[in-house]
C-alpha cells in the first residue's frame, strides 16, 4: 500500500511519496531521498554500515521502518558535514589511514560520533566496544581505533583546557 509521510532528515523536512509500508529507513534514505552515504551490507543489523542517528541515538537504519521515524530527528552521514567542512572524526579517519574501500566508513564515522558525544574521554576499551557493531573487512581496525583515540584525546584535552580556563573553576 502506498504511503505518504514526512521525515526530518539532517534538519530538513523531506516528503516521502508512494512508499511501501514495509520499506526500511535505509531503503527510503537511499532510494527515495537519494542520500546514498548510508550503506547497506547485511540488512539485519549485524554490520553497522547503515548506522544513522535517530533522535541522537545510534541505530541500524536497516532495522527501522521508515514510517516509524516520522517526527524524529534523523541524522545521516550527509548531515555530519553538511557545509562540506569535515568533522574532527572525519579528518582523523583520513589522516590515520582508517579508510580503505570505505564502505564501512560512514557507519563507523556515525558510531564514533555517537560514542564521543556520550563519552568524550573514551579509552581503548570503550572505543573497541562502541565500534564492535561496525564490521570493517579491509583495515583490521588498527587505524580506525587510532583515529578515534586521537579525536578522543583532542576533545578531552580541549574540554579539560576549556574547564581550566572557565572562570568558575576552582
Amino acid at each position, binding site marked *: 500500500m502506498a504511503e505518504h509521510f514526512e521525515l526530518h532528515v539532517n534538519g530538513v523536512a523531506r516528503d516521502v511519496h508512494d512508499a*511501501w509500508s*514495509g520499506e526500511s529507513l535505509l531503503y527510503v534514505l*537511499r*532510494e527515495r531521498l*537519494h542520500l*546514498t*552515504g*548510508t*550503506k*547497506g*551490507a*547485511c*540488512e*539485519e543489523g*549485524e*554490520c553497522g*554500515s547503515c548506522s544513522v542517528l535517530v533522535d541522537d541515538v545510534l541505530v541500524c537504519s536497516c532495522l527501522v521502518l521508515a514510517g516509524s521515524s516520522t517526527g524524529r530527528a534523523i541524522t*545521516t*552521514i*550527509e548531515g*555530519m*558535514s553538511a557545509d562540506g567542512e*569535515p568533522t574532527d*572524526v*572525519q579528518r582523523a*579517519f*583520513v*589522516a590515520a*589511514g582508517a*579508510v*580503505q*574501500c*570505505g*564502505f*564501512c*566508513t*560512514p557507519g563507523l*564515522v556515525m558510531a564514533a560520533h555517537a560514542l564521543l558525544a556520550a563519552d568524550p574521554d573514551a579509552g581503548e*576499551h570503550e*572505543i*573497541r*566496544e562502541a*565500534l*564492535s*557493531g*561496525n*564490521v*570493517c*573487512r*579491509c*583495515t*583490521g*581496525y*588498527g*587505524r*580506525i*581505533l587510532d583515529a578515534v583515540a586521537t579525536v578522543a584525546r583532542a576533545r578531552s584535552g580541549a574540554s579539560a583546557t576549556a574547564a581550566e580556563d572557565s572562570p568558575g573553576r576552582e
Partner: protein
Amino acid sequence: MLDTGRSLRAGTIGDSSLRPDGMAKVQGTFAFSSDEQLDGAVFGATLRSPHPSARIVSIDVSKAWQISGVEAVLTADDVPGSATYGLATADQPVFASDVVRYVGEPVAVVAADHPETAGRALAAIVVEYEVLEPLLDPEDAIRGNHDDIHPDGNILRHQRIVCGDADATGDVVVEGTYELGMQDQAFLGLEAALAIPDDGGGGVELHVATQWLHEDRRQIAACLAIDESKVRLVLGGVGGAFGAREDISLQVHTCLLALRLARPVRMHYSRRESFLGHVHRHPASIWMRHHATSEGELVKVEARYVFDGGAYASTSGPVLINGITHAQGPYRCPNAVVEGWATRTNNLPCGAMRGFGVVQACFAHESQMDRLAAACGLQPLEIRERNAIRTGDRLITGQVLESVAPVVECIAELDALALPDEPVGGHDGHPLRLPGGAGRTTDARHVVRGIGWGVSMKNLMYSEGFDDHATARCRLADGTATLKFATSEVGQGFVVIAGQIARTVLGVDTVELEQIDTEIGSAGSTSASRQTWMSGGAVDSACRKVRERLFEHVAAQHGLDPVQLGIDGTDVVDTVGTLRLPVAEVTRGQVFEETVEFRHRPTEELDEDGQGNVHTAFAFAAHRAVVDVDVELGLVKVVQIATAQDVGRALNPLSVIGQIEGGIAQGLGLALMEEIVCHDGHVRNASFTDYLLPTSLDMPDVVATLIEQPDPQAPLGAKGVGEPPCISSTPAIVAAIRDALRQAGVERELRRVPVRPADIVG
C-alpha cells in the same frame, strides 16, 4: 634547509600520502556501485536453485508476467551468445537450463519497478525439479564413484610434483592431515551494477564493482554475442574484493536485462545472495609428511592436496597449482613428492581469495614445522631459520628462486619485536582483556597464554605462462600529470601510489586520475598482489617515457643533450651544468603523452612432473601470535600479532600497514571463526548473523616491521603486500593455541581451521 637528497617531497614515493578518495569516503559522497542510480532504471533480481543437484523438468514464468510492475523475465533461452562463461574455462551457464549443480545457481532473472515487485516475481516462477543425488565429497570425485556432474568431468585439475630423490628418507619423520573450512571474502560492498543500454540497443555500458574490467568485458560480450567494443565497463566504487570479484556474478544478467528492455537496469545482491553468488576460498584437506635429519634439516616433503572446487571451474586449477608449488613453504627442501587434486562437486563454487591456495598450504606446512621442531628438540624459530630459503635456492618445481628472499631477516626481526607487557587479564583487570570478553564468562585463573609462529612464501603476479600485462597512459601538460588506467581500485590504494609515482618521476605536484574504465587497455586483475608491480610498473614506465619527451623538449630549447637532464624536486635540472627550470614552467602550453603496456617476465607451465619456471616472483612474511586461552571453555583472545614482512620497498608505509593489519584480521578470522558451513550442499550460515567476522573486539594490537630490501626485478623495487599478511598469521594463531594448551597440560593437534571451542576443550 640543506637538501641532503634524502628528504622526502610530500606526495612522492616513500611518503605516507593520504588517499585521494579518503575525504569523499568519510563524508559519504564517494559513489559505490550500489549507489549509482538513474531515472527510469528498473531493478533486476535472480532466481536461484534450491537444490545442489537436480534436473530442470520445466520452468513456467507465466505467473511472474502477470504481476504488475514486472518488465522482464529471462531464462537460458534468452541468452543470445555463449550459454556459458568462466575465467579460465567457460563451463558455467549464464542460466541453468537442463541441470542445476549447486544451491544458488541462477535459473532466471526478472526486472521490475521495485525490488519487492522483483522478489514477488521470482516467487511466482514455477520450476519443476527432479532432484538428483549430489556429489559432495571430493574424494568421491577422485575415486570416480559418481557420474560426471558436468560434461567436463569431475576433476578440475590434477598435478603432481616429483623433485629429486623420491625415495629419500630422513631420520625424523612427522606427518599429519590438515583441513581448512570454506572462507568467505565477506567484502562489505555487496555485488551491484548499473547497466545502461545504448540508444538503438547496439551496445551497453556497465558500471560495476569488479577486480578486472577487461576480463568481465570479454565474458559479457561473448554471452551477449556483440563485439567487445560495444561493451563499455566503468568501475563503480568497489566496497572490497579479496578475490570474490574476479569472477562474473551479476554482470551478464544485468546487461541482458538492459538490452532486452532498452532501459537502465540495476542489480544488487543481498548478503545471502552474495554468499551464494561469488566464489570462496577452497575448503581443503592436505596430508603432509616431512622428513628431516636429526639436526632438523629438511630432506623431503610429501603431500597430497584435495581442494574442493565446487560446481564450476573458476580458478580452481591455478589455486591448486599455487597450493602444491608452495608445499615446501619458505624452506629449502631437496626432495619432494606432491600430488594435488581440485575436484568438481555440487558444493558452492570456489576460486580466488586473498592468498590463493597458499593459505591452505601454509597452514599445513607450518603445523608440520612445529611438529618437526618438537621431534628434533628444536625451538620453532630455530628450525625455521635453519631451513630458511635464500635467493638462488632451487624450489621443488626446479625453478631457481631469483627474488630477494629475506626469510632469515624476517625471522630475526620478528623475534626482536617486543612481546606484550600486559599479563593475562591486563594490569587493569578489564573484562574485555579476557577470552569471552564482555560476556564475562572467564576467570583469569583458568586462562593460559601461548605463543606461536608462522612463516610464509607467496608468489606474486600470475603464473603458468599467462600473458600478464598492465596498461597505463600518462599525459603531462601545464605542470599537471594526468594518468589513465583500467586498474580496479578495490580499497587497496593503488590510486594513491599512482599519484606518488607520477610526482616522483615527473617532478609535478598535481596529479589527476581519469575515470577507471575500458577506454584504455587492460590493467589485468587486482589480485595476486600484482597491481603495485604491474600497474605501478606501467604508470612508472609511462611517466618515464613522458619524462624523456620532456627532456628532449628542454634540451632542444637550451642546446643540451637530453641525457644530461634530470628531475630534482619539481625542477628539470642540468646534472652537469647550471640550468634549473620548474617543470610547471617548461610544460606550459606543452603536451607530452605516452601509453605503455607493461609485462613481467614470462613464466612456464609445469610439466607432468611438476617442473618448470611457473612463478614470477615471491614475497615472504613471518608472524608471531600471542593468545590467551580459557582451556575450560575453549575461548581464545588474541593478545598480539607481531609481523615482519618482506615488502621490497614501501611506496606508501601507511598503506602497507593498512594491508598488513587488514590481512591479519582475515587470517585471524580463518583461524578462529570464519567458515561457510555446508550440510548436504546447503549453506547453513549465509548471513552476517551466522557467519562470524572479526570485530574491533577480536583484533589485537598488531606490531609490524617492514623488511625493505628493494627487489631489482620489481619496477619500483616494491613487492605486492596484500596477500602475505593473511597467510602465515593463521598457523601462528593456531600454534599459539596449541602452545597454551600444552602449558595447561593438554596436547591437542588442532589440525583444522577454524579452531572451534569444542576442538580446544576436546
